[in-house]
């Protein structure tokens, strides 16, 4: 069994990798890379050469290409000791005032060009963009020189997959941060150093707090391993998809916090989220009031659930509702075949299957709001009642689907020979029903349970739009509309992972319920 399971998991992982590869090929080769700037306000403001450089920088950040500006090349030379800082200052000025380079700079430009062209890069000099008849640059018209190379899709895929989980270690930060190391404390300084709350604090790591405790479920938290599904460009700029899905929303929650400088304040800032930001302390007076090191990049505590949280709560409750209603209904339909209840159920199933989902969701919303239920998800004053309509709307199609199949399986079992034999053997109808029919008919239904539970994590597109739920369902469609390729790949990976997991779990659950099903020997 274990061997079979490992085989299944490996094959599942392989298929996930292929899916991500297929999606990457689709969006990175078929779509123009210019399209990511479609909704970027910074991009539209920029002009001339600066715009070109900005595009290069962003493309490098989002993994399209490898970009090396001339200045970086010179800095490397300074580091390796080939030239001095003073020389750097001279050489870095190229095409100054459109008069051409100094001979020394010319030499390094030549070297730069030769070096990178030999490595397969494209070197692109951008001439100074001056105003007509003058020597003055236009806005953003300074001359530039850089080299770039497109990243091939396979190495992109490799970089993406190897970077999925990052383990934080004390050498993560490249800058000089003093003595690197981990400290373990039983009394977390955030709570003033008196409350018992163990934490592991790192220096040189990306996150300051690697492990810490607080009052929120699951009480012990970690920043040691972070999941990077892909950087968002426009949906939630600069944030990772996973963070977009799991970060809390809503209004701020304040609590008493002791800052590293000893300052005590009532604030929503979450010191446990502190990450390293180079030079942030020395450059900001505000940060110096609060912090003693460069771990100044923090998020805030909010009272709402995350996108995924809302989707999951609504999804899981609708799954429970669907099973609670559909199983008795399906059984009743099968037992009273061709009677009124069966006809009513069949009508409902036809209705849901044939009517476009948009149609019945809006119809249900209209009915719901006409009897006074809240038809919108109001984040300002949340009530429990506002969950009701989305939950029921989401349950409608799954009820129909479950009913349809349970009825089918039940009727197949009722007509089978072993049931007739059991009846002729003198078993009571109740016994036949509970011990034979139901037990066999429920097995295929059980197979779908993991899929519906995990499916709740992905949210529902129409339901969330109609009721304005701040859930995860619309992430993919928003990302596609905004050409946010990082999010598209990340969400695809997440979906594929869930779907592979749910099939494996479904098979496992089925073999637990029904001992006749074994995956170790070949059935056929």
């Amino acid at each position: 069994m274990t061997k079979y399971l490992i085989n299944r998991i490996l094959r599942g992982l392989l298929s996930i990798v292929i899916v991500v590869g297929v999606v990457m090929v689709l969006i990175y080769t078929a779509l123009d890379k210019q399209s990511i700037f479609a909704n970027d306000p910074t991009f539209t403001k920029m002009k001339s050469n600066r715009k070109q450089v900005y595009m290069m920088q962003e493309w490098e950040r989002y993994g399209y290409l490898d970009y090396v500006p001339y200045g970086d090349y010179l800095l490397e030379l300074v580091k390796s000791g080939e030239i001095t800082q003073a020389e750097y200052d001279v050489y870095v000025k190229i095409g100054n005032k459109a008069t051409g380079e100094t001979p020394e700079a010319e030499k390094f430009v030549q070297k730069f060009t030769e070096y990178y062209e030999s490595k397969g890069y494209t070197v692109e000099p951008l001439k100074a963009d001056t105003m007509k008849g003058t020597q003055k640059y236009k806005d953003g018209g300074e001359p530039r020189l850089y080299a770039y190379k497109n990243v091939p899709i396979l190495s992109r895929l490799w970089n993406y997959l190897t970077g999925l989980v990052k383990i934080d270690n004390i050498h993560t930060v490249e800058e000089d941060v003093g003595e690197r190391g981990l400290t373990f404390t039983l009394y977390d300084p955030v709570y003033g150093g008196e409350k018992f709350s163990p934490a592991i604090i790192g220096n040189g790591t990306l996150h300051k707090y690697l492990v810490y405790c607080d009052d929120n479920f699951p009480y012990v938290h970690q920043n040691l391993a972070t999941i990077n599904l892909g950087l968002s460009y426009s949906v939630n700029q600069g944030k990772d998809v996973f963070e977009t899905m799991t970060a809390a929303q809503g209004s701020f929650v304040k609590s008493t916090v002791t800052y590293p400088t000893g300052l005590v304040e009532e604030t929503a800032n979450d010191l446990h989220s502190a990450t390293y930001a180079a030079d942030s302390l020395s450059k900001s007076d505000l940060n110096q009031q609060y912090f003693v090191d460069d771990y100044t990049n923090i998020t805030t505590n909010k009272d709402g659930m995350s996108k995924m949280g809302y989707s999951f709560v609504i999804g899981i409750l609708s799954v429970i509702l669907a099973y609670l209603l559909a199983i008795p209904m399906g059984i009743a339909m099968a037992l009273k075949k061709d009677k009124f209840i069966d006809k009513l159920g069949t009508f409902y199933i036809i209705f849901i299957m044939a009517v476009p989902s948009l149609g019945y969701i809006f119809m249900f919303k209209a009915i719901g709001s006409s009897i006074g239920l809240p038809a919108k998800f109001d984040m300002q004053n949340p009530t429990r009642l506002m969950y009701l309509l989305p939950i029921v709307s989401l349950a409608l199609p799954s009820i129909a689907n479950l009913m349809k199949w349970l009825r089918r399986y039940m009727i197949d079992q009722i007509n089978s020979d072993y049931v007739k034999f059991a009846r002729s053997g003198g078993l009571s109808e109740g016994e036949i029903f509970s011990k034979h029919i139901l037990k066999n008919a429920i097995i295929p239904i059980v197979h779908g349970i993991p899929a519906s539970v995990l499916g709740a994590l992905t949210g529902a597109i129409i339901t969330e739009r109609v009721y304005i739920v701040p859930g995860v369902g619309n992430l993919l469609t928003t990302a596609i509309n905004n050409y946010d390729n990082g999010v598209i790949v990340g969400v695809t990976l997440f979906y594929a992972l869930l779907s592979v997991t749910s099939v494996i779990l479904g098979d496992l659950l089925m073999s637990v319920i029904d001992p006749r099903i074994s995956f170790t020997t070949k059935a056929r």
Partner: protein
Amino acid sequence: MENLYNLDHLNMSEEELFSMADRDELASERITAPRYSYWQSVFRVFFKKRINIIALALLAVMLVFVYVYPMAIGYDAEVDPYINLSDSTAKHLSPAEAIEKFGFSLKWILGAGAAGESTFDAVWYGSSISVTLALVCALINMTIGVVIGAIWGFSKKIDVFMTEVYNIIANVPYILLISVIVLIMSASFWSMVFALTVTGWIGIAYFIRTQVIIIRDREYNLASRCLGTPITRIAMKNILPFMTSVIVTLAATEIPSYISYEVFLSYIGMGLKDMSLGKLIEAAQSAMVTPGWGFEFWSPVAVASIIAVVLYLVGQNLGDASDPRTHM
């Protein structure tokens, strides 16, 4: 004893009196049974239910409205929606107001839309696009799906390979694929067809494959193979009759699902550029919340639902009727 004749009185020779009868070897093999024609039986069973006649009549009326009506009035999607654009009193009218303004005609019984256009005309023109899309997609997907599914089910070597392909394709989010294709190829009718069919067939093929596997190894097929029936004959004569009802039932669920899908895609902003039902629903979405403007939104929703339900009902019952087990 008077009834007995003496043949000698007839004065005929032996040859004249008796001749050898041909002995038909096959006559004893013949079974006396009423003539059975498959398709005749299908329609006999189908028309026995009164609801089917009603549904068929509804379908006919609907098809007239979907295809003949827009053509009969010469509807032009470039011109007709904007004829009342400059008339501010012609916009967002309820049926009663529209009839009062323009006089009673079929055109105005559903009121007027955001640009003063007739909702009734727009809805039927839109449904002609949506229904055509659904029919074309269903035809392509069903054809490819059934053929590949049948081969997939028959060959064990292909089965191993195709199952892996299925596992991969089924994991690519459908919306993603469609929207990327629409983004690349622009949102025209045929790129939409391509998007819906490029992987749409694989679900159908998988379903057919399972059905073929179930029937393929039945005893009568084993017997047939032992007697030396060629595989194509087994496929055509032994398995296809079983599959007809499955295929018709599948088509009955597929066609409405494409209508539903088109509406859904338009709603999330990834649908056709043409004035399809989904596009109409999406455009009228904001009108829904305004009291009195509801007709603009509910008309296309209701028409989409009615078309889908009727197609589904006819298809399902035709599927039931085409199952030979119901012909008894």
